[in-house]
């Protein structure tokens, strides 16, 4: 079973791109499973189900969705394998920009869109910077020069990645992307695999449900901004 982790900022076009890839894979008569991870709510599973692929969804609620992802992905892979999927795709929304679902030796894809602003590639952490393939969407809305400038910004933070433009609506580029999926890592289980990058320790009192503001309520892993810095001159 070929397994790929797909992540990206909210509404960047992950589902649209995956749907276009599913169409191309189905034309090759492949059996596909999708697992969707989100925080509070998602209807993406319905869109996938409509395509006739196997779907599971997981909502992390109060947890960071990427932490929730790691605790569950191994059993999802087993599920996909037991159901004879030839491709298993996980979609997760990158919400905290510091966590990332990407796993070593598992093909990692980040979806980011041309409208998100020229500074965005710098702001996204390992989810973008450690991906093997970066898909840039919504190129239909901007000029080709702007697409090139945006792609060069992506290249700056992840120069080793394959960078592709895909249109999530018309599917332009999806065919080409699918041929990269055919080279994705072929696995049966995630046993023994490790994350590409550690996830931040979320261990302050607020992680544990604290809501009151004030020094006396802050315990655990707390860090303070330096408000004096640079104010001397």
């Amino acid at each position, binding site marked *: 079973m070929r397994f790929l982790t797909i992540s990206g900022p909210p509404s960047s076009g992950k589902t649209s791109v995956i749907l276009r890839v599913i169409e191309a894979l189905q034309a090759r008569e492949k059996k596909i499973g999708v697992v969707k991870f989100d925080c509070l709510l998602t209807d993406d599973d319905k869109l996938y189900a409509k395509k006739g692929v196997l779907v599971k969804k997981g909502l992390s609620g109060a947890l960071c969705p990427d932490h929730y992802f790691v605790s569950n992905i191994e059993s999802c892979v087993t599920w996909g394998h037991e159901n004879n999927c030839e491709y298993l795709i996980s979609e997760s929304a990158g919400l905290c920009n*510091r966590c*990332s679902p990407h796993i070593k030796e598992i093909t990692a894809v980040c979806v980011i869109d*041309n*409208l998100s602003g*020229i500074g965005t*590639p*710098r702001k996204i*952490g*390992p989810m973008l*910077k*450690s991906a093997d393939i970066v898909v840039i969407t919504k*190129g*239909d*809305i*901007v*000029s*080709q*020069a*702007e697409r*090139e*400038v945006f*792609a*060069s*910004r992506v*290249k*700056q*933070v*992840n*120069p*080793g990645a*394959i*960078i*592709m433009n895909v249109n999530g609506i018309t599917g*332009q*580029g999806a*065919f*080409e992307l699918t*041929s990269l999926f055919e080279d994705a890592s072929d696995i049966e289980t995630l046993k023994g695999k490790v994350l590409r*990058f*550690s996830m931040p320790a979320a261990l302050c009192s607020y992680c544990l449900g604290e809501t009151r503001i004030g020094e006396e309520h802050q315990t655990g892993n707390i860090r303070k901004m330096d408000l004096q810095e640079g104010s001397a001159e």
Partner: protein
Amino acid sequence: MNISEFFLTSMADILVDHPYIEDFLTSFGLIVKPSDDTLQHYLDNLDQDNLEDLGVSDEQLRQSLDDFLTGMLALSDPMDKVESLTIIGGHDKSGKAENLELNLKPGEVICIVGPTGSGKSRLLADIEWVAQGDTPTSRKILINGQVPDSKWRFSTEYKLVAQLSQNMNFVMDLSAEEFIRMHAESRLVTDPEKKVAQILQQANELAGEQFAPDTPVTSLSGGQSRALMIADMAILSKSPIALIDEIENAGIDRKKALDLLVQEEKIILMATHDPILALMGDRRLVIKNGGIDKIIESSEEERKNLVTLEKLDNKLLALRNRIRTGDTLEHIEGV
């Protein structure tokens, strides 16, 4: 210059001579200050806890820097020369073979015509992807008579094809000059300031209405953005093949625009239904049901009509200007 030389350069010199390395490091959230320490020393002494906070591992940072420098060096390499582009036919949507082998040379302009949905964009995409029988049309594309290196497919440095798409909108909050400068810098061109000035001047020659360098790109008119993108493509792009997908023709001098691109010795493929552009092309590929159905060489008789067409076009242009200046159109005999 080879990569190892960068690592032996002092940070002070790096900041002056290779600002893109500073840009690279700051894009990971690192702080860079001028000093006599070498880049190697800088990397060896990075605070590992800080890297962890920034979400990058030491190993990954070094690998990325290596990849980045390799890409940068490749940008300054000359492009391999493209002497010919060959399209070997595949099949149309019903599986009927195209049975053709089409050879295109630099300086040629090929128009692609056919109804919506017939497969014009697919043909352009086949060329961009350097298809090898692995697209829905099963076409094959050869460069200089050979199956090209797969570096053409994914590399941003060796892009075979520059594409001018239907959409010319901008979302970035920059002036025309800043935008073009940023584009030039991303291409690492020598003497970017000169190139920027050249592009702005050229764009103003193509555009019906002039614009100042400090005009925000988001407030350029349709014609002005198209003019800017064509000048940008002609002057900045090293790609030997230019694809133009249904460029709208209002507000821009099409003949000059095409001449500008041809003069750069590119192979130009253009999806268009504009009769003037079609007649300026050397050949027209007629697309039907996903396949190249017919090839029409522009004839002398057709070319003669170009003069008449241009006259008609100028008449419309004059009328458009009258509307713009608040005139009325009761009397149009004189135009």
